[in-house]
């Protein structure tokens, strides 16, 4: 199966930048013939499966596969000793074993893998492998992890990273001081398309090809090759259709296991996680505890922010170190403030490993700083809107890392335009209305419903930080009026495929844009994360198309004895701005083949010093959210009625795709506000299923009224900011603030549970 890269859009108009061009993979996805990574099959294929630890912390005393080998159809059973290359992997620190050898550090850690003729055979084989564990004391508390007297559960220690920010006058005191401790639960990305991959071994085990759903093909390849003991060019990755990602596909999950099984058996091997295994197989959003003390003057202006942030990284480092820096550097929110004293820790515990999820540390920071802004407003007798307007950051303001915000920063405009959106009608007074909290349960008594309104505003860095050498490559080929684009950018649902076509149509004046297979046969595009692909891969596609256009203009200019600088693209034609020449791109490129590759880089960033000072981020985006909720205070039920939002997006490139990002992000933020939490008791995950881990359904979807704040961003190649993460960040504190407003309760944690509404205080 090969995924469609159909090129002609049915809708009228030219589907250039700025239009709601339709996705090239859309029809195939509705018809069920778009190939997700789980949809690939191969001749003579085996199934693979992973044996995982049931304990959060234990010594592995012995592993005995004898009984499993007796099951007909079992072709391979592999353990830590069967890893030919590096025994560990990891995005930042290589601290996570491919298979646990002597010790397991979290519930669900891989211990062995099998390959067999049927998924049911695999299941039975896993059940037949005898592993003797000796349980060890479980380190599950962040404070215990930070305490130096606690025995280390990993050679790298129990603190993955500590960072401090001290800026301005640390001793300054405001007229008004408010403080609070905020808690954020562990959220799961819960993409729909479960982890799946199919590995094809090369003859003799010389190499391997892996079809996989991932966010970053080249980084996967590097880590896989290291573990397999192969050089990277012997490992070829092809992007299988990706059923959502949201950060959970940035780390290695089944990649190495699948390749190992294929190389061991000499046969294609497919591994596909169940939903339960998926909960154990990928990293989650860090749960956190944040204490903040905000100082302000009488006018409400922030004077100082002090406090601490603790994020639990769980058993292995993943991206915790980067998440932590994002978290602490965003604790001031989108507000000007010169003085700060802050400490942040990312801890290692025997809880599930945590890493990237949409918002990447800023979700946690925002929940705390927005709670604080409301406390300040209350202490000063101001409205939630006014306190935020008084402090709203603008271009040229300095962050407390010393970095000047030189991005477009329309924070006040985001707040004002959100405030201008009309409020929804009053709640239904009809008993049994499905619109009430409780929905189809029809449980709420309309007389007991209380309405609340709350605010959240956020700042989010775009792209990678701290000096990371980030780049994206793309190739454009123009031949006979048709452009072909090649890149390794993971399309995970966000719609880069349509954006790339729009760019090529706009720059080159072509209608037909073919997308080549997304694989490792070109340089890295970096990860589809950090709201970076529009800027990075968009910049690369734009750059490659521009180079092609230059060559095309040179060709046409040469033919007509003109200066190429006189030529421009108008629609689908090349036009001489100083003369009568007008020639269709399709005609001008007939018989030609122009191919250009472009590597896009953003400006360099720096690491923070020991006081947390430095230009560590590339650029920023802002957003405001206002939530309206109805709360049944008897039953502890919440219905999110409306989310109003205005988002700083730079140039709008595809209004419909933008709206999709906004609405989708809001639903995820709503999930974190009122229902989504991986419940972990002393390292034991209690709810690894969609029955017990609740996700927003169609009935939970609020009315979303969204206004894009369109101001061209000069730093960005297309004038456009990344739009993927901001929608999900401040919506969570806005909803929780609305619940506080409705109930009068000081709710300090998210997600808000029924008992927090009914029984708290």
């Amino acid at each position: 199966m090969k995924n469609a890269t159909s090129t002609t859009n049915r809708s009228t108009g030219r589907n250039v930048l700025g239009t709601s061009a339709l996705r090239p993979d859309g029809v195939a996805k509705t018809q069920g013939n778009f190939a997700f990574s789980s949809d690939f099959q191969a001749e003579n294929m085996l199934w693979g499966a992973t044996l995982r630890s049931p304990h959060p912390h234990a010594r592995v005393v012995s592993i005995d596969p004898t009984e499993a080998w007796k099951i007909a159809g079992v072709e391979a059973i592999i353990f830590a000793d069967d890893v030919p290359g590096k025994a560990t992997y990891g995005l930042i620190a290589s601290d996570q074993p491919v298979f646990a050898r002597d010790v397991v550090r979290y519930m669900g850690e891989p211990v062995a893998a099998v390959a067999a003729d049927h998924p049911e055979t695999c299941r039975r084989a896993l059940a037949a492998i005898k592993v003797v564990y000796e349980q060890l004391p479980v380190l599950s508390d962040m404070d215990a992890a930070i305490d130096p007297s606690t025995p280390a559960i990993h050679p790298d220690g129990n603190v993955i990273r500590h960072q401090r920010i001290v800026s301005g006058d640390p001793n300054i005191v405001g007229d008004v001081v408010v403080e609070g401790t905020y808690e954020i639960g562990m959220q799961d990305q819960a993409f729909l398309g479960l982890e799946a991959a199919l590995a094809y071994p090369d003859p003799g085990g010389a190499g391997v090809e892996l079809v996989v759903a991932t966010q970053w093909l080249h980084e996967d390849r590097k880590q896989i090759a290291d573990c397999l003991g192969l050089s990277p060019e012997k490992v070829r990755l092809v992007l299988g259709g990706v059923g959502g990602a949201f950060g959970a596909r940035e780390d290695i999950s089944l990649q190495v296991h699948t390749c190992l099984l294929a190389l061991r058996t000499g046969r294609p091997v497919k591994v596909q996680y169940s939903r339960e295994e998926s909960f154990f197989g990928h990293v989650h959003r860090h749960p956190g505890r944040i204490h903040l003390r905000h100082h302000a003057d009488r006018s409400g202006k922030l004077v100082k922010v002090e406090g601490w942030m603790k994020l639990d990284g769980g058993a292995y480092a993943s991206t915790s170190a980067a998440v932590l820096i994002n978290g602490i550097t965003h604790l001031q929110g989108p507000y000007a403030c010169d003085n700060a004293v802050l400490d942040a820790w990312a801890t290692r515990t025997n809880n599930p490993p945590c890493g990237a999820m949409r918002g990447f540390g800023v979700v946690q920071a925002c929940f705390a700083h927005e709670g604080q802004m409301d406390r300040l407003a209350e202490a000063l007798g101001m409205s939630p809107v006014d306190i935020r307007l008084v402090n709203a950051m603008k271009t040229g303001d300095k962050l407390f890392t010393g970095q000047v915000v030189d991005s477009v920063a329309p924070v006040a405009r985001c707040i004002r335009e959100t405030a201008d959106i009309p409020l929804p009608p009053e709640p239904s007074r009809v008993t049994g209305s499905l619109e009430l909290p409780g929905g189809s349960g029809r449980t709420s008594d309309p007389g007991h419903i209380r309405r609340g309104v709350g605010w959240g505003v956020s700042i989010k860095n775009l792209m990678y930080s701290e000096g990371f050498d980030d780049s994206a490559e793309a190739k454009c080929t123009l031949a006979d009026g048709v452009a072909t684009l090649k890149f390794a950018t993971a399309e995970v649902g966000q719609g880069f495929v349509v954006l790339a076509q729009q760019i090529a149509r706009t720059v080159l004046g072509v209608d037909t844009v073919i997308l080549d297979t997304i694989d490792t046969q070109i340089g890295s595009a970096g990860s589809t994360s950090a709201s970076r692909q529009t800027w990075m891969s968009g910049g690369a596609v734009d750059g490659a198309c521009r180079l092609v256009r230059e060559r095309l203009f040179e060709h046409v200019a040469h033919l007509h004895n003109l200066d190429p600088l006189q030529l421009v693209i108008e629609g689908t034609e090349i036009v001489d701005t100083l003369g009568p020449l007008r020639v269709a791109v399709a005609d001008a490129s007939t018989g030609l083949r122009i191919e250009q590759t472009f590597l896009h880089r953003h400006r360099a960033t720096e690491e923070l010093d020991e006081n947390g000072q430095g230009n560590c981020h590339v650029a920023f985006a802002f957003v405001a959210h206002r939530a309206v909720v109805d709360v049944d205070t008897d039953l502890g039920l919440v219905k999110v009625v409306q989310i109003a939002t205005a988002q700083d997006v730079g140039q709008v490139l595809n209004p419909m795709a933008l709206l999709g990002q906004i609405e989708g992000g809001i639903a995820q933020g709503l999930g974190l506000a009122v229902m989504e939490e991986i419940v972990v008791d002393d390292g034991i995950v209690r709810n690894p299923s969609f029955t017990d881990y609740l996700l927003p359904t169609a009935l939970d979807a609020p009315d979303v009224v969204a206004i894009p704040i369109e101001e061209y961003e000069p730093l960005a190649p297309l004038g456009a900011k990344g739009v993927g993460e901001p929608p999900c960040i401040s919506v969570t504190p806005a909803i929780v603030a609305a619940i506080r407003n409705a109930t009068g309760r000081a709710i300090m944690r998210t997600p808000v549970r029924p008992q927090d509404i009914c029984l708290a205080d």
Partner: protein
Amino acid sequence: MTETTAFYELNVNGSRREVRDSWIGESLLYVLRERLGLMGSKGACEQGECGSCTVMLDGDAVCSCLVLSASAVGSEILTVEGLAPNGEPSDVQRAFVDQGAVQCGFCTPGLIVAVHHLLDNNPDPTMIEVKEALSGNICRCTGYGRIFAAVETVVAVRKGARS
């Protein structure tokens, strides 16, 4: 597998399809995908919670992950592939694309079947009826807004065609 396997026939999208050497414990979703090559139905929970695997069984929308394949013998099974067999998208499929209701697309085939089922039985649903009917189909990407827009479009167009 050495265990008892079964041979039976299923009626899928109007054709009789033989299922050979199937382990008796296989779900309808597994057989459709892995034995009959109909990859349109997706599995995202295999627990009846997400609706990605929705097919019609004798006209009812069901989660194919919860149906034992061998028990579907004698029933008429309609999968997403059978909704518009000639390759031209159905009005619902077209509206999903045109209205931006497709992002990653993993939920999409199940939703397409669910929307067809809804509108076959209730051609003019209120928005809350739409939401309730689709509340068994989880979409993690879109936040549902564009999906509702797609359904509204189809309802309006079909209404126009009737009047």
